[in-house]
């Protein structure tokens, strides 16, 4: 497949198909699955920015989502802020949380990054549980105000408004990610990931890139969290749970680290796969074991993920035949 077809035509065809889905999927359940898949796609693709592109083993990414959830819930329900503004504010608070965690993480490596970011997630969860008068504690918050556009309620028309709003968010998030990874900053992230010393020798600040990438990856993750709270009208500490984290991580790894579209495709596929498996007797809980097995298989066979395989095949087709052409000195 030619790069132009893969990078432009195929995504546009997929987008056109997703725009047409509500014409065929007229029940609210199928649309709900798509909405959740879109939100997972935003979480996974933004996580991939820090994990896949920059190699920061950030296991606190779902914390940014949780911060977004509670920001929107508290602003919209407790403070009476317009839900649209509450969703946008979720991106800002998640970015601020990312900045807080980025400072100690910027100079750490490997397992220490995992430990610190995971501990940060637990810390935020304990904060949510302990501040029950604000967050609802273990009970969470319910009956959060829903979205309206003028007189139109998004609860109407079998979630049609929420479907297009979530898809719009996914499109904007993806365009944002494409702009980031194609910029010199985005390329410097791969340099930092693969050869720190060489990157520093070319003027790239390792710690600054790590802080920046964590903050950037949190913006749309937080917005997705805010949208999730307003859409489901619930904020629950479950969002900090290991189940959500491992499912999102499997989307990143199966789809392909270092690609933008891989985790999005995997998020759509895995959301529907887990839902389909839930309908099979005996697999209600065991479905997550199957997802974990799929993740192990993909990592074993294709460490670059499923989209990574396609890119490698593409490159093999375009690779020049001669071993070396440049033989006349630099």
């Amino acid at each position, binding site marked *: 497949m030619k790069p132009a077809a893969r990078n432009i035509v195929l995504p546009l065809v997929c987008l056109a198909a997703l725009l047409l889905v509500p014409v065929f999927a007229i029940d609210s359940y199928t649309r709900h699955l798509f909405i959740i898949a879109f939100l997972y796609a935003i979480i996974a693709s933004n996580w991939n920015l820090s994990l896949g592109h920059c190699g920061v083993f950030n296991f606190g990414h779902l914390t940014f989502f949780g911060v977004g959830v509670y920001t929107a819930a508290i602003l919209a329900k407790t403070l009476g802020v317009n839900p649209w503004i509450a969703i946008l504010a979720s991106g800002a608070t998640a970015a601020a949380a990312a900045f807080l965690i980025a400072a100690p993480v910027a100079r750490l490596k490997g397992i220490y990054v995992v430990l610190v970011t995971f501990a940060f997630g637990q810390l935020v969860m304990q904060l949510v549980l302990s501040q029950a008068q604000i967050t609802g504690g273990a009970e969470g918050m319910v009956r959060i105000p829903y979205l309206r556009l003028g007189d139109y309620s998004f609860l109407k028309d079998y979630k049609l408004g929420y479907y297009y709003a979530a898809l719009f968010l996914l499109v904007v998030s993806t365009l944002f990610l494409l702009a980031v990874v194609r*910029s*010199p900053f985005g*390329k*410097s992230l*791969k*340099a930092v990931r*693969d*050869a720190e*010393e*060489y*990157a*520093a*020798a*070319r*003027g*790239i*600040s*390792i710690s600054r890139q790590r802080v920046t990438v964590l903050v950037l990856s949190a913006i749309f993750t937080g917005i997705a969290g805010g949208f999730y709270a307003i859409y489901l009208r619930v904020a629950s500490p479950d969002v900090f749970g290991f189940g959500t984290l491992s499912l999102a991580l499997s989307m990143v790894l199966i789809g392909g680290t*270092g690609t933008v579209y891989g985790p999005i495709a995997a998020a759509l596929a895995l959301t529907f796969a887990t839902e389909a498996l839930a309908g099979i007797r005996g697999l209600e809980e065991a479905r997550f074991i199957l997802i974990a097995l799929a993740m192990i298989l993909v990592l074993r066979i294709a460490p670059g993920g499923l989209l990574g395989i396609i890119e490698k095949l593409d*490159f093999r087709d*375009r*690779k*020049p035949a001669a*071993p*070396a*052409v*440049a*033989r*006349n*000195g*630099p």
Partner: protein
Amino acid sequence: MSDPIIDVRDATKTFGGLTAVDRVSFTVTRGEIFGIAGPNGSGKSTLFNLMTGIPYGPTNGEVRFNGERIDGRPPHAIARSGLCRTFQKDAEFPDLSAIETLQISAVYSGGQSAGQALENARRAIDRVQFDEARAHMPSSELSVYEKKQLMIASALVSEPSVLMLDEPASGLTKPEIERLDALLVDVNKSGVTILLIEHVLSLLLSVSERLLVLNQGAILAEGLPADVVRDPAVAEAYLGGRD
């Protein structure tokens, strides 16, 4: 000495009980090619490391660049100030193409805008004579010689005032070394000061204006290349004693 660009005073690097570089002092004049030689393990690369802060600075002593102390500065800041190095071992950004590698080097080390950096990257690609496919393939797919060309080009594209080359000729064929020789002279003529660590003595003696020889972390000899190679202590360090 006229117009020193680099001044290293009593630079020392210790690792626990081991002293890898021991109170080394020397000065490099603006515009010269300054060679550094020594047997394996004599501290040549460690000297480059502590001068550039990659991955560590000196334990003691000071490094001045254009009169300002740079030891203790972050490595990326040292690179941006115009002191650009290459590495002895193969270094690459495997997922980035040659043109992307050159572009980010020009942006971050050279302080150029993205557009200007891309233009300079294309010019550098022409200079190393990579065809379109090679310019855009992942760097990990390039040959050893092409990777070396790219590493040097990625340093030059940022327009440094000092280029520090750590054994650029290792693993190269004789014709490739001759082309490297011509390149170094060419780069130097454009006003870039060069520090060159090299085991290929023919190259080192051909291009260096002055030579520093290290042995066991300390300076063994310094001076004009012709004088240094005649120094009995240098011959002994390389070939061993007579008894």
